[in-house]
């Protein structure tokens, strides 16, 4: 009987002749799905017909016609030019979106820095330091962010003096309850050269970096890349500065009337939001960092030490690369949370996307559905892009197993 039946390819999907279709899982599955689809469609249909009917009844016109209508209201912090006279609701949207992105990106940097510092402090062998870090984490993450924002906003405001009693250094930087005023650079003729210098500097640093790596590969010598890069950058910039004839002047803030005029103003709402978001999120990041560092087994450090690697290099080449794999995914989700939480700006008067678009624009135009949908889509898009990037990263760094 030992004739070996040959290996065959599977036959095409076998229809089931004998089974009653009622009990066929494939049929049942299809039925479930059709039912679900019907339910979803029904809900969507109901909701949309209701919405249309209601809007007709209430005389609400839908559509995006308002996008190009003049806005008529002002926004204090704006990264692109905007004025109540000439700008449209659409431009208000961009102002809000950019403000969201501004505070989110600043928050991401700050939260990551604080989070790593606190997380590493929590692992410190110094008991006082690790205890303080633990207190930080427990305190800030167990209090609602909204409450923290109120406290920061009011604390920031109350602690600072009125404009006339501004704290100032060299009559160029002022700090008061209207915010922080610093000289604003005004780029005159020839500033382009500075840009060129910066680009050149970066190129030079890149070239040097590559050379340093090669040289180490070749001769084993190690180079102080950080210091050299800094020097290179400073040198190029100085060169460009003088070559272009000092093109940049500064608009120095000045106390005039009852307020500070000129300069670059950093609003207290921004500061409060930034602080609140970063400090709150950092308390979560700290835990993630701690867990990540602990996930690298003690054996890795010991192995590195016993090979003669110094603690600094061990951290850089052995521990951190491994910890990062564990840290990065939850870290991104926290940073995403930070971005989403920046919508709490609405509580303290920072003109972010939600405050401007889902607040003022929605109220002035009455176009609730359009405004809500656009705002949500923006956040959704941010989330999806982030998770996409995350998946790619994960695939790239996944530890290869067999």
């Amino acid at each position, binding site marked *: 009987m030992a004739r070996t039946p040959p290996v065959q390819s599977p036959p095409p999907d076998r229809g089931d002749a004998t089974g009653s279709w009622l009990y066929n899982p494939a049929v049942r599955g299809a039925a479930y799905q059709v039912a679900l689809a019907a339910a979803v469609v029904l809900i969507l249909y109901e909701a949309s017909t209701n919405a249309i009917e209601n809007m007709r009844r209430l*005389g609400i016109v839908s559509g995006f016609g308002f996008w190009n209508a003049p806005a008529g209201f*002002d926004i*204090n912090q704006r990264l692109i030019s905007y004025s*109540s*006279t000439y700008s449209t609701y659409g431009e208000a949207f961009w102002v809000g979106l950019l403000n969201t992105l501004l505070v989110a990106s600043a928050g991401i940097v700050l939260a990551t820095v604080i989070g790593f510092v606190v997380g590493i402090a929590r692992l410190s062998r110094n008991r006082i330091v690790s205890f303080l870090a633990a207190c930080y984490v427990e305190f800030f993450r167990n209090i609602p962010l909204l409450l923290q924002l109120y406290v920061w906003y009011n604390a920031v405001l109350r602690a600072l003096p009125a404009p006339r009693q501004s704290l100032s250094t060299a009559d160029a930087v002022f700090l008061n*309850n209207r915010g922080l005023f610093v000289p604003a650079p005004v780029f005159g003729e020839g500033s382009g050269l500075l840009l060129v210098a910066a680009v050149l500097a970066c190129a030079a640093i890149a070239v040097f970096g590559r050379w340093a790596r090669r040289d180490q590969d070749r001769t084993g010598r190690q180079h102080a890349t950080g210091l050299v890069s800094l020097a290179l950058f400073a040198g190029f910039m100085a060169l460009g500065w003088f070559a272009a004839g000092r093109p940049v002047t500064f608009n120095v803030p000045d106390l005039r009337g*009852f*307020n500070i005029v000129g300069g670059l103003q950093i609003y207290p709402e921004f500061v409060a939001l930034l602080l609140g978001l970063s400090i709150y999120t950092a308390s979560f990041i700290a835990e993630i960092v701690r867990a990540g560092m602990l996930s690298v087994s003690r054996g890795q450090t010991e192995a590195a030490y016993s090979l003669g690697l110094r603690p600094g290099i061990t951290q850089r080449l052995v521990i951190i690369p491994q910890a990062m794999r564990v840290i990065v995914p939850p870290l991104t989700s926290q940073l995403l949370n930070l971005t989403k939480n920046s919508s709490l700006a609405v509580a303290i*008067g920072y003109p972010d996307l939600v405050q401007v678009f889902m607040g003022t624009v929605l109220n*002035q135009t009455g176009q609730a559905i359009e405004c809500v949908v656009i705002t949500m889509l923006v956040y959704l898009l941010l989330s999806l892009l982030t998770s996409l990037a995350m998946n790619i990263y994960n695939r790239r760094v996944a530890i290869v197993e067999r």
Partner: protein
Amino acid sequence: TLDQVKQRGVLHCGSNPGLAGFAVADDKGQWTGFDVAFCRAVAAAIFDDPAKVRFIPLTAKDRFTAVQSGEVDVLIRNTTWTMSRDTSLGLNLGPVNYYDGQGFIVRSSLGLKSAKELEGASVCVQQGTTTELNLADFFRANNIKYEPVTYASAVEAVKAYDSGRCDAFTTDASALYAERLRLTAPDEHVVLPEIISKEPFAPVVRHGDDQWFDLVQWTVNATINAEELGVTKANVDEQLKSENPEVRRLLGVEGNFGEGIGLPADWAVRIIRHVGNYGEIFAANLGPDSPLKIDRGLNRLWTNGGILYAPPIR
């Protein structure tokens, strides 16, 4: 709507969640104020009982949706009557129960005489109201630079002003007086003389129920007419015997004007007996008998140099 209200046994009245003088609830949920009084007037007209009102606090943002959706039967909440609101939001507004205008409050220590001196000032304002637009218009028209600081709620805006974040706070003048009371040191703030906008406050109802709209309209008108005719809470029962045909028509002794709005003939008597006439409502909530002590100004009767003028009942 009237039938619904009658059936429900209680009027749903949209109100400001807290504006001294106009609508405030105490810890126990008891509402008082100028707008509140008009809500009660409507309830009194319908039920002969001013307590049959449920007050639904609404923010500036969601007040119109609340009317549109029928969550409230009427919105009496310092709402400015504008054309767009009247025509494109599916709402009916009117008549005016308070003539207001937007003003500024500043610290007296600044020594300002006029809003035109606010060059470079930062101004706290509440989001999503006509106030925000008027503010922009005013500064644009006068070509003055300023820095708006916009808050979602009035409470936040006032708090920020109080703590020094802004040089000025702007809202309807009536509210300025009310909000001033909330400041840490009310005496150190002054209301600037400029009124930069017309803000006629009017009750709001939904499109499509004209009888209900009439009822609300004439409730307001009744209080004004009552003041004009000298009918007060105290003397309303006496006035029933009045010979003045206008009074007799108002109080339903002559004719049956209540029929047109689905109410019995004594509808106005109920209003006045329970809430009083316009002058009494004003005095108790905003005027001399209140902490706000707002001058009646435009809100005097036309006979007294104001513009308060109600169509006659006949």
